[in-house]
């Protein structure tokens, strides 16, 4: 074992002779070992009564509940549907407003200076603190939930996009200028491509934030949705359902994060390295 810069061994090609012995990479093998320690241990401490069933539930119970709620009585699907609607509408709106705003703030220095104090202040605020006011003003309908998701997601999108415009290198801008590229062409040929990786990062960060927004919105202002399902199950002491909801949320988060990362890699063909 050495400390090195190889980073994650994603692209490492296995040695041909070792293929038969270790058809699973170290990454997968040790990942599995982690699971094989945690899951049985969890089951065991609950079965042996070291931890009460209501506090942690247990993997077997959760699996059972999963089969029930997803396949047998299908209770979870409407909640998931409701949540995804809020998620995509909120995130979509955040992208539609946040990316142009971030681009303008990056492009127009004076606009940036003018709005900077407010943006910094809101960026530093945990916007969830505004949730009670939002619910009071917009009510318990879809509007308030979409607004909460939008509010959670937009600022990371704006800030990241803005950083992208700033990251456009002077030498490329000089080049465009020396060829007398129009303002629009400079924007499309230099600034947009330079900031594109940052916009994708904005999408990734926004996704995480939007998911937070969905949960918060449904905790405080819903009678449907995965957040509501988790919260309601908690108050009725159905820990197994809480855990199931949490696991689904986490898996969705992982899935979407991985999706955006794939997108990032795909759109950066021109990049010499992917890290």
């Amino acid at each position: 074992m050495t400390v090195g810069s190889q980073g994650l061994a994603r692209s490492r090609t296995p040695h041909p002779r070792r293929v038969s012995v270790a058809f699973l990479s170290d990454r997968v093998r040790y990942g599995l070992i982690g699971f094989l320690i945690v899951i049985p241990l969890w089951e065991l401490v609950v079965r042996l009564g070291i931890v009460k069933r209501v506090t942690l539930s247990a993997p077997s119970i959760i699996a059972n509940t999963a089969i029930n709620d997803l396949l047998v009585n299908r209770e979870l699907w409407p909640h998931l549907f409701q949540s995804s609607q809020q998620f995509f509408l909120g995130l979509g709106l955040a992208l539609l407003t946040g990316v142009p705003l971030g681009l303008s703030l990056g492009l127009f220095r004076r606009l940036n200076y003018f709005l900077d104090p407010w943006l910094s202040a809101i960026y530093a605020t945990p916007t969830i603190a505004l949730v009670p006011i939002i619910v009071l003003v917009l009510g318990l309908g879809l509007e308030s939930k979409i607004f909460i998701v939008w509010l959670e997601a937009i600022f990371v999108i704006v800030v990241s996009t803005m950083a992208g415009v700033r990251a456009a290198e002077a030498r490329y801008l000089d080049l465009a200028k020396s060829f007398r590229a129009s303002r629009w062409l400079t924007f499309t040929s230099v600034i947009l491509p330079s900031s594109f990786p940052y916009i994708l990062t904005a999408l990734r960060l926004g996704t995480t934030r939007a998911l937070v927004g969905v949960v918060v919105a449904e905790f405080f202002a819903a009678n449907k949705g995965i957040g509501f399902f988790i919260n309601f199950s908690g108050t009725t002491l159905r820990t197994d359902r809480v855990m199931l909801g949490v696991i689904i949320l986490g898996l969705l988060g992982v899935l979407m994060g991985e999706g955006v990362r794939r997108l990032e890699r795909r759109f950066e063909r021109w990049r010499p390295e992917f890290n």
Partner: protein
Amino acid sequence: MQAGLALEARNVRMEYVDQATGERLLAVDRVDLDIEEGQFVSIVGPSGCGKSTFLKIVNGLFPATDGTIELRRPDHGVAHAMVFQDSSLFPWYTIVDNVAYGLVCQGVPRKEAQARAKPLIDLVSLTGFETKFPYQLSGGMQQRANLARALTVDPEILLMDEPFAALDAQTRELMQAELLRIWNEAHKTVLFITHQIDEAIYLSDRVIVMSARPGRILADIAIDLPRPRKLEIKRSPDFITYADQIWSLIATQLKSHLHEVQAKPGESVA
């Protein structure tokens, strides 16, 4: 402007304010320079002497504080195009799109621009690399593409800002020979900035020696070596005499401005 001239600079001065200290610095001072059409002229000087700044003024990237620069208005094409120091190819464009960029900037549709870029890609021997991205090319090849990009807009004068500085010694020599071949075929006026004395002599009809900051013209030396030039010419006695002459001019500058050069490293003002 006199007939037969490609560039006429009169009393060019450039001052700027150091953002950190608020100090006013003189980068270029009283530069007079005439370049005849079709001539290859190099400017050499110690680093930080403002030669790159002068080039950027000619290119319109910086405004001069004082003085005038006139360029011949071309019958076709544009007045000037720049070959930058580092390759500065857009990493997000393929080679053909990079080479065609100057034309796209002029409003030529992309497809047509690509078609017109093709002969220039052939000229710089990059045939077959059109759809590659810059990172897939070696440093020398990137600079060829860089040169082709400047040539596609058919400039009256080609401005080159230490284009081979980042290349290794062997590649640099090969690129110098290549540049002379291309220059011979393209019939362009060239203003070439370098800190390499042998490069300047080998390529040029005239070598302008600039002083340490503020940049002034110390000497204007006509290089009377026969063309076409082979790389072997660098070992000829005449070549070495030129090199010694220029080196001694620069060496005195280096000695007298040693402190200043140490205190203010870096070439450009940007």
